[in-house]
Every structure is written in C-alpha cells, then in structure tokens.
C-alpha cells in the first residue's frame, strides 16, 4: 500500500545487509540514529536485523552487539511512515524469532532460502501471513540456477503466501542480462510483485538494479553509501538520484537520503568498514561466492597466511551456499596443509 504514486518501492538495508560490513556491531543507538534519518528521508522500508537474519547471531556468522529485540525497540520509535522489515533464514532462525519481531512491531518479514530450497519455508510463510504481516520470499544466490529453476522455486513461495519474491544476487555475480532474464520471467509468470537485490562486487550494483526494474521489478534493495556484504549493495542515495533522473516516481527525497548517508552513517564508519570494491570483493563476484564470506575469509586468510582470493576461488568451485561460513576454515586448513606438505617434499 504505497503512500505515494511510486513506481518502485525502495528497501533500505543499511541496518541489515550493512551489518555484515561492520561485523554486526552497530549499537541500538546507532541504529536509532540511522533509522531516524531514513524516516526523515521518507524511505519506503527499512530492514533491521543481524546480517544473516534474526537468529544469525552466532560464532559462525559473528555475534551482534545487541539482540534482535534491543535493535527493534531502538528503531521502532523512530519510524513514522517508513515501514519496518525483518529478515529470517530458515535453518538459522525459527518462527520464535518471527514471533518476537511481530510483537515488536515489524510490518514485513522477509524469508530467505537458497535458490533451490524454497520448500523449507512453507511453515514460516504460514506463520507470517497468519500474523498479518507482509511476507516476502528471497531466493538467494539466484545466479547459480537458470531462470526456469528460479521461477519454479518462486512459484513455491507464491503458493506458500508470499506477497513478493526477490531475485537475490547474493554473490554480486550477475551481469545485466542475467538479471533481466530472471526478473523478466518471474514478472511475466507470477501474479505477485517481483524484487531485485544487488551486490556491487562486479561494479554493477546500480546498473543491475536498473536492469531489474526495466524487466519488471517493483521493489528493490540498497544501503546508504553502498554499505553491505562484500563490496556492498546498490548505493541507496545513488539509486534514488538515478531513478529520478530516469523518470521513475520514488518516495524518498533525494537530498535527505544523501544527508542520511553522509551526515549520519559515514561518521560511524572507519577506513576499514567503508564500502570499497577492492580485489577480494571483486573475486566474490567473479567466483560467485556469497558476499558475507568476505570479512570472515580475510580473517582466516591472515591466520593461515593465505591470499583470501585463492580461498574464495576454491569455495566458488565447491559450490558453497549462503550460511556455509564454516567452510572457509575447512578450505584454508586444507590449502595450508597442502602447502606444508609441498614445502616438506622440497626439503
């Protein structure tokens, strides 16, 4: 239910996908400040949770600085017209977390599965729709499957009660044509809204989002200053400006969104957390690896004295999926062991 005559709904995930970039360490106070600035800019939706969704706070993905209810309690009072979204990945979180978010005032629950595994989400869609929230389904790592497979899985989510299904380019590995094929097919075949979620690992965050909208996406994701896993997501203030320039009606105010990025978010970041398309994140997109692996892989690379890029390429070849962060250590340990064996053989 659009507040205005908009063509595209914008979902700001600075407080969710952006959490990956800061190792899930935003404080509730920082979240409140950013949410307030986004509300001032009339952002359509803000999404709040651990980067890996509610229930993601763990050793494998990193413990967050506060828990889900503390974050939601901090953000909710700051929002007037802006809607609140939360994320949950079945297998990581449970309906217990969704229940908590409903009680705290979430308007939308987004349920994410790997692109081939939509059928683990039926019980969660049922729970969300029963509680009267908008339910969105997110098909992660959609680049790994052909458009027909993405459609088959999207139809399952539609059947379970999704109000929208997203093509998630979780690895930032898609080219504009990949986006058009998948989003276009879903827009033609589904009777619900289609969304697109970009990562900028190949430098295509904005371009791919525009391609998705041209192909029929009516709800798209981004983060202020392009924060987010890997090299970050589509940069929200750029998206607002670009869409306006392209003639689309969008709700957020361009200058206020820029202000939220530059005056509120940027002072919270350091040189180390500022989004950057560097060599390691470029390799995520090239090798097709889930973007949140980046910072974990850097830490593991340092521990084992390995180039993060070779770990990422190996992970890509193995076809690891979102959530398998534990494989980083496994792969690095094997590479390091091989190296040690080779060195010994040379002696």
């Amino acid at each position: 239910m659009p507040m205005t005559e908009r063509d595209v709904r914008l979902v700001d995930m600075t407080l969710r996908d952006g959490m990956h970039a800061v190792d899930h360490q935003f404080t509730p106070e920082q979240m409140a400040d950013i949410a307030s600035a986004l509300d001032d800019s009339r952002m359509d939706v803000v999404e709040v949770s651990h980067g890996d969704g509610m229930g993601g706070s763990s050793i494998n993905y990193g413990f967050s600085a506060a828990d889900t209810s503390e974050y939601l309690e901090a953000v909710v009072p700051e929002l007037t017209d802006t809607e609140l979204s939360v994320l949950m990945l079945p297998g990581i979180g449970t309906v217990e977390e969704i229940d908590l978010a409903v009680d705290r005032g979430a308007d939308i629950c987004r349920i994410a599965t790997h692109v081939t595994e939509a059928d683990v989400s039926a019980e969660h869609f049922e729970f969300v729709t029963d509680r009267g929230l908008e339910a969105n389904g997110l098909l992660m790592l959609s680049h790994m499957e052909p458009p027909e497979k993405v459609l088959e899985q999207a139809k399952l989510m539609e059947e379970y009660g999704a109000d929208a299904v997203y093509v998630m380019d979780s690895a930032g590995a898609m080219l504009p044509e990949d986006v058009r094929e998948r989003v276009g097919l879903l827009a033609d075949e589904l009777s619900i809204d289609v969304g697109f979620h970009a990562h900028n690992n190949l430098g295509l965050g904005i371009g791919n989002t525009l391609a998705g909208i041209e192909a029929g996406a009516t709800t798209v994701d981004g983060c202020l200053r392009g924060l987010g896993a890997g090299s970050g997501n589509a940069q929200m203030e750029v998206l607002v400006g670009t869409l306006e320039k392209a003639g689309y009606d969008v709700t957020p105010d361009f200058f206020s969104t820029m202000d939220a990025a530059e005056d509120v978010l940027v002072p919270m970041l350091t040189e180390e957390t500022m989004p950057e398309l560097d060599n390691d994140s470029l390799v995520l997109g090239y090798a097709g690896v889930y973007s949140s692996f980046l910072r974990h892989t850097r830490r593991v690379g340092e521990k084992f004295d390995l180039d993060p890029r070779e770990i990422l390429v190996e992970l890509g070849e193995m076809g690891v999926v979102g959530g398998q962060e534990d494989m980083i250590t496994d792969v690095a340990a094997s590479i390091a062991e091989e190296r040690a064996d080779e060195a010994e053989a040379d002696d």
Partner: protein
Amino acid sequence: MAVNAAIVGPGNIGTDLMYKILGRSNSIDLQRMIGIFPVDESEGLQAAVDEGIDVGTDGIDSVREHADEFDIVFEATSATVHEQQAPVYEELGLFAIDLTPAAVGPYTVPAVNMDDVTNSGNNINMVTCGGQATIPLVHAVNRVADVEYAEMISTISSESAGPGTRQNIDEFTQTTAAGLEEVGGADEGKAIIILNPAEPPILMRNTVYTKVPDTTDVDDVRDSVAEIESEIQSYVPGYEVTLEPSVKDQDDVGFDLGDSVVITTMLEVEGEGQYLPPYAGNLDIMTSAALGAAERIAEHSAEARTVGGDADD
C-alpha cells in the same frame, strides 16, 4: 543371547535400519517389519519379505498381534504417529527406540548417556542426525573444560533432506540445540542447518564450535575428542573428525570474546552405502545410533535378564 526386535515404519530409515541389523548385529534379532500398506505397495516391506523377515501391514494392530515375538520396537514413522503409539508400546511392555522427533522419552546419544536413559524408562529418543553427530563432541569438550556455549552447523546434501526435515526445519534446530545443552552439557546451545544442492551430493559435514575459558588446555580437549571419536566409530563406522580441535582467539573473530576462546572441530559422516547412498550420512548416523543403542540395551539385558520392564516375568 540376542534380543528380539521389530521395526515399525518401512520407509527409508526403517529399511536402512533393517539392512544394518541383518548385516552387522549379533545381539539384535529382527523378527518383524511393520507398515500400514500392503506389501506390493511398500518397497520397505517388500525388501523385508525378500530378506525372509516376517511383515505386518496393519500398523499398531500388527504390533499388538505379534507383541510376544519381540522386546524392542524401533519407531521409524513420524513424530505424530509415535506420540499416538508410545502408550501402546508401554502397555505391551515393549522398549521403544524412537527415531522420530517426537521425543516422548529422553534424548539419547549412545556414546554419552546410554546408562542414564536405560535406567529411566522404556522409551528413548534419538534426537536428530545433527545431534548424533555433534553432541558427543560437545560432551567430550565439556568433560575437560566448561563449555559456556556450543554451536553446531550441519550441512547436508539437498538430496538427502526428506520432506519431513523440509516441512519442519525449525524442529531440527530447536531439538538439536536442546540436545547440545541437555546431553552435551553446554550452558547454551545453538544449531544451524544448511542444505547444499551441489552435484554430486556432498557428504554430511558438521562444524562444532565450543566457547570455553581461555585457560583451557587444548591438548586435553584433543585427547578427549579423539577418545570419543573411536567410541562413536564403534557404532557409526563412517564417522570421522576432519579438523581436530583448534583454537580461535580474539584476533580471529569480529566480536568480543571476553575471557573465552572458541574451539572449532569438524567432522564428516559417510554412510555405509548399503541401502542409502554414501552421501546420506545424516540418515546413516540415525540408524547406526539407534542400532548402537539397541545393542547396548541388549548387553544390559544380558546382565539383568529383563528388557522393557517385567512383562516377560
């Protein structure tokens, strides 16, 4: 002397269990396989007939009719069915080994708490596949260090995740987390399951993280884990620790560890590949653990001469 048993539920799990009992158990005598469909509509019952095992096709009525033939019942149906049938087993004086998530009886991991549970009643529950794989490792760490928090990540091939797991994935994480605490001994438990569709299908792999005081002696932990690994291998031959306990300290993580360190251990489970494919280690470890539990009960009864209460006396 062998103990007589029946399998109720001739699906994938029940059929795999039948082959395991026939192939490698000296102390369990399989008397009957019981389902609810006619033999020509049930692959599992047909397999039983082919192996010369008697069958029943009337579910719980078949159990009642033949209850004098066996002392142990393996429940390989579903949680709902086990909840309905458990009181009947109790009434008939049968010892129930429950492979469903119903958890009517206590969580049971043969390498950890067999003695405690067999002394507490006539119904034991096999937790989850991930629980069977990881709870013993948490227990092994906890017996030499105080485990403040334990976390397991189970990755299984999409091929081996059946409709039961898929329709109720929360049940897996909640039950496994409870098992990490109640049987593993962690103050707090967290379980995560990931399905991976890669072809060829990957083996079941698990990572166990335990958060322990930074004063913990890692060599003690390694010895304790090595010891329990061989104990588990005695009933799950395809079980293998692939990364022995190694320490992550504050420099290796992006959050505050306080006075703790994280110990990471990884393991794989390769199925025997007799009935189910080798990658389905998640199913293999359930049937292996259930058989391991039954054999321990049989040993117990050889000593005490009673199984499933006093019905035979």
